[in-house]
């Protein structure tokens, strides 16, 4: 019987599922250490205030309390660092105010940590936290970028004039102005990208442990990148030597970006464990997650597109205010610059582009990357603008896109905003999506819906994004304070089974399966004999973790490189055993064969020989079969595609129902189609959530109004349709797998498709644009303000 095909291209069922479906997952809060204490954090309920006094006496004396710490105790610790330094237009560095572990003198957003109470049980710590007497003097607060940049706005940080973090630009201003001067038509759109709260279902947690005998620290944390946390926390905040600090990110219940960053709580529990010589655990309540996990998006932009008389795009001008929140989160500054402005060419040949971005401090939770990070903001702006341009030039929405697409034969394609796309075929994804969604048949469906008193609309988005941010040298020159390579260690055991140690991290993506398939494919080792290890700095080489859809394109490529080394060494061993020249040894289907003969050694035999080197070329070759490769990509990868959304709005309630959603994406080589489809479905659900349901709302004083699942609308099963998901792939040309990444495409491509559909449904009401979310209230007001006189009644 043939073994089932489990290599690249097979929808192998996931290895990790067995533990998750049986309740044997091992998430951070599931871990308990002997003698463990519990930390509860007292947070500011004010958006902006001066701390006049903190009286901890009653809390200290409460039952079970071991310690209470405030900013006075942690003032000697380093600032929580920002990982990317942006420079202003004039070349000066961005404003980078201190981000203390516990508030020092001031609180700057609702949720800012003021004190930590540590007790024998969580309940005791909670009870005692209620006894803290904190005297705050409220200060004026700014909640929005508009309020924060108004003349005379109260400052979030003394040192950041005008509440500006930076004032940055990209592109050729003069050439863009010239293009606008010669344009036949200019289309202008003001738009907002709504603020979101990531809400991975597992709340953040951290458990610090200190081993008094060795002096070593261990931090268990809900992280997407344990090595990055070890470096940031160890070197910058706590001043702990890296070799004394182990960071473990075990099973992590979703991240979507929000678990990339180094958070204060990680430093607090690790530091406190050292001070108290006992393990200290903190687990967020969901209410805490709402006010302490980095939020996403929150842009206010003006976009202008210049077109010639035929509808060709001549130039694009964009001005964006990006909300940073009260402090700079780890990658916050890179999101509205190198992950946003550089994407504004999209799938189009727009020859000149000029983008200005001001990053603004406000009295809100820090804002950082959330699934897509910058690219959804760019895509929403561009794909809305193109639809408005179609409407105002009278061109068909599909035709205006086709007319401006980068031609198939133009790759590699250099955009005017720094990126060079290596491959893509936007016509192929468009055509496939139009067919699947039956775009041509839409008028009939619209008429049928109208007959039932419903408003149907269809919307399209032809997007492009960039994944696997790299190369290290380039990102370094742009201000990144880290490298962006990835590492893999392939350990072949004497019996021929394999353990992969990857520097990426899986928090739902299924790496344990996909990466095992790579090994099965390249080395011919059965899937069941491959295990993938990630998330523990004591086991894996220094890796950069998972975000930006990088794991397969960068981490998988590192694996391929390491396996190339395994094969090369295996060929040398085989040549010795088979008494042949190395150049005559071929490796295929798990066998080393002398070309043109049937003389062969299996992979298992070679592995055993490597570890039992009795008959072995020991003079030239070290024993063992264990190889590591670090892979630094030459370029980003460029997934793209076409999303089409069909909606029906009930004019009586303003409720939008998504009837059909079609996604045809180009993600490069697909290793496990089942997993890719799952990633796209999940991403689209978040995109529909952003477009129709989700919104982080602050009142004008900076109070967070959407602070629980009661107020923040998470997409539920009855809000979503079945999705039609397919791929139409071109290969990445510069990595060995050809893979581009699929984790974010769903969340990037979908929001404008949804809003374009909603606007289309409301075309009789004179609607030009709707900011997200297109809530029932918003739509009902539009419909009822302008109900056409002939409304069927």
């Amino acid at each position, binding site marked *: 019987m043939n073994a089932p095909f489990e290599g690249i291209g097979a929808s192998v069922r996931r290895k990790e599922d067995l533990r*998750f479906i049986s*309740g044997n997952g091992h998430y951070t809060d599931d871990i308990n250490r002997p003698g463990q204490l519990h930390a509860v954090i007292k947070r500011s309920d004010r958006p902006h205030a001066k701390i006049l006094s903190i009286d901890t006496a009653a809390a200290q004396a409460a039952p079970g309390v071991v310690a209470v710490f405030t900013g006075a105790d942690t003032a000697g610790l380093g600032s929580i660092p920002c990982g990317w330094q942006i420079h202003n237009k004039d070349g000066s560095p961005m404003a980078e105010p201190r981000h203390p572990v516990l508030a020092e003198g001031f609180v700057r957003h609702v949720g800012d940590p003021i004190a930590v109470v540590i007790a024998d049980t969580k309940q005791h710590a909670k009870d005692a936290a209620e006894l803290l007497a904190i005297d705050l003097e409220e200060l004026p607060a700014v909640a929005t970028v508009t309020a924060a940049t108004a003349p005379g706005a109260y400052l979030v940080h003394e040192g950041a004039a005008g509440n500006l973090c930076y004032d940055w630009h990209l592109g050729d201003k003069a050439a863009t102005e010239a293009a606008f001067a010669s344009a036949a038509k200019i289309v202008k759109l003001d738009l907002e990208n709504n603020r979101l709260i990531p809400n991975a*279902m597992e709340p953040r947690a951290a458990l610090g442990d200190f081993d008094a005998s060795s002096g070593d620290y261990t931090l268990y944390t809900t992280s997407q990148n344990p090595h990055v946390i070890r470096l940031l926390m160890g070197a910058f905040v706590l001043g702990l030597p890296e070799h004394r600090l182990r960071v473990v990110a075990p099973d*992590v219940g979703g991240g979507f970006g929000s678990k990339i960053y180094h958070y204060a709580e990680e430093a607090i529990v690790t530091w406190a464990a050292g001070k108290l010589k006992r393990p200290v655990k903190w687990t967020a309540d969901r209410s805490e997650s709402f006010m302490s996990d980095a939020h996403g998006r929150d842009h206010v932009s003006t976009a202008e597109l210049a077109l010639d008389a035929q509808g060709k795009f001549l130039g694009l001008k964009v001005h964006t205010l990006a909300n940073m929140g009260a402090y700079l989160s780890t990658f916050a500054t890179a999101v509205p610059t190198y992950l946003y402005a550089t994407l504004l060419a999209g799938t189009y040949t727009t020859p000149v582009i000029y983008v200005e971005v001001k990053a603004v401090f406000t009295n809100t939770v820090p804002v950082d990357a959330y699934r897509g990070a910058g690219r959804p903001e760019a895509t929403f702006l561009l794909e809305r603008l193109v639809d408005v341009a179609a409407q105002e030039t009278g061109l068909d929405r599909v035709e205006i896109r086709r007319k401006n697409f980068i031609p198939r034969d133009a790759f590699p394609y250099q955009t005017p905003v720094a990126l060079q796309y290596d491959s893509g075929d936007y016509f192929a994804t468009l055509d496939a999506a139009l067919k699947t969604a039956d775009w041509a048949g839409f008028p009939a469906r619209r008429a049928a819906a109208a007959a039932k008193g419903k408003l149907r609309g269809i919307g399209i988005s032809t997007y492009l994004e960039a994944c696997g941010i790299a190369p290290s040298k380039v990102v370094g020159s742009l201000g990144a304070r880290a490298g962006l390579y990835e590492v893999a260690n392939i350990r072949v055991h004497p019996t021929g089974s394999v353990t992969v140690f990857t520097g990426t991290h899986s928090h739902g993506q299924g790496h344990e399966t996909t990466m095992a398939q790579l090994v099965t494919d390249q080395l011919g080792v059965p899937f069941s004999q491959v295990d993938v290890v990630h998330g523990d700095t004591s086991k894996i080489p220094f890796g950069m973790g998972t975000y930006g859809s990088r794991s397969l394109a960068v981490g998988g490529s590192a694996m391929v490189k390491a396996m190339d080394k395994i094969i090369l060494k295996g060929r040398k061993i085989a040549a010795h055993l088979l008494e042949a020249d190395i150049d005559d040894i071929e490796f295929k289907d798990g066998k080393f064969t002398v070309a043109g003969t049937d003389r062969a050694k299996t992979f298992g035999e070679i592995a055993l020989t490597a570890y039992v080197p009795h008959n072995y070329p020991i003079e030239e070759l070290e024993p063992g079969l264990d190889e590591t490769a670090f892979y630094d990509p030459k370029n980003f990868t460029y997934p793209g595609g076409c999303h089409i959304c069909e909606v029906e709005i009930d004019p009586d309630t303003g409720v939008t129902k998504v009837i059909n959603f079609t996604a045809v994406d180009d993600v490069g080589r697909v290793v496990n189609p089942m997993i890719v489809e799952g990633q796209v479905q999940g991403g689209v659900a978040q995109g529909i959530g952003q477009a129709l349901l989700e919104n982080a709302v602050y009142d004008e004083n900076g109070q967070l109004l959407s602070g*629980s699942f009661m107020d923040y609308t998470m997409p539920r*099963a*009855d809000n979503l349709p079945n999705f039609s998901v397919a791929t139409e792939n071109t290969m990445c040309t510069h990595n060995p797998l050809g893979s581009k990444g699929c984790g974010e495409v769903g969340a990037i491509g979908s929001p404008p498709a949804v809003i374009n559909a909603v606007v289309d449904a409301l075309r009789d009401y004179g609607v030009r644009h709707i900011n997200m979310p297109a809530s029932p209230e918003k739509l009902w007001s539009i419909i009822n303000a302008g109900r056409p006189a002939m409304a069927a009644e």
Partner: protein
Amino acid sequence: MPQVTLTVNGKAASVEVEGRTLLVEVLRDKLGLTGTHVGCDTSQCGACVVHVDGKAIKSCTTLAWQVDGSTVTTIEGLAAADGTLHPMQEAFREYHALQCGFCTPGMVMSAIDLVTTHPDGLTEQQIRDGLEGNICRCTGYHNIVKAIAAAWPVMHGRGTLAAAAE
């Protein structure tokens, strides 16, 4: 402190609780059954769903003393003694109805209740409506809905998972 006696996954358990102790705290902290998760503090997400006397309930909003004397089944208690998975567990794996796995225990427990309480059939809309109390951030629900539909005939003795996949 008062004592609460439960039968959890077939085993008798007697634990000391405070008046405010939640069932989920008993399961996770006292009995070490960490398969049941806590995803919120407003009884919205369903990560904590277990069966009490055969019915799905949210263990994050149930006080331990309220269920004194009850029989509790958690995700850890679903598989047969020989390790054979419950059809709903099988279906979740077969249909890729989980990604990070955090919502999964609660989702599976709710799904079993949904199928059990609909012996005459279960439409896609009924499944979607029935999952009102469970949030998944990863999957977009598409595959969860498929998995539950596929488990229905198996649980009601009217087919196999393989047949459902056809």
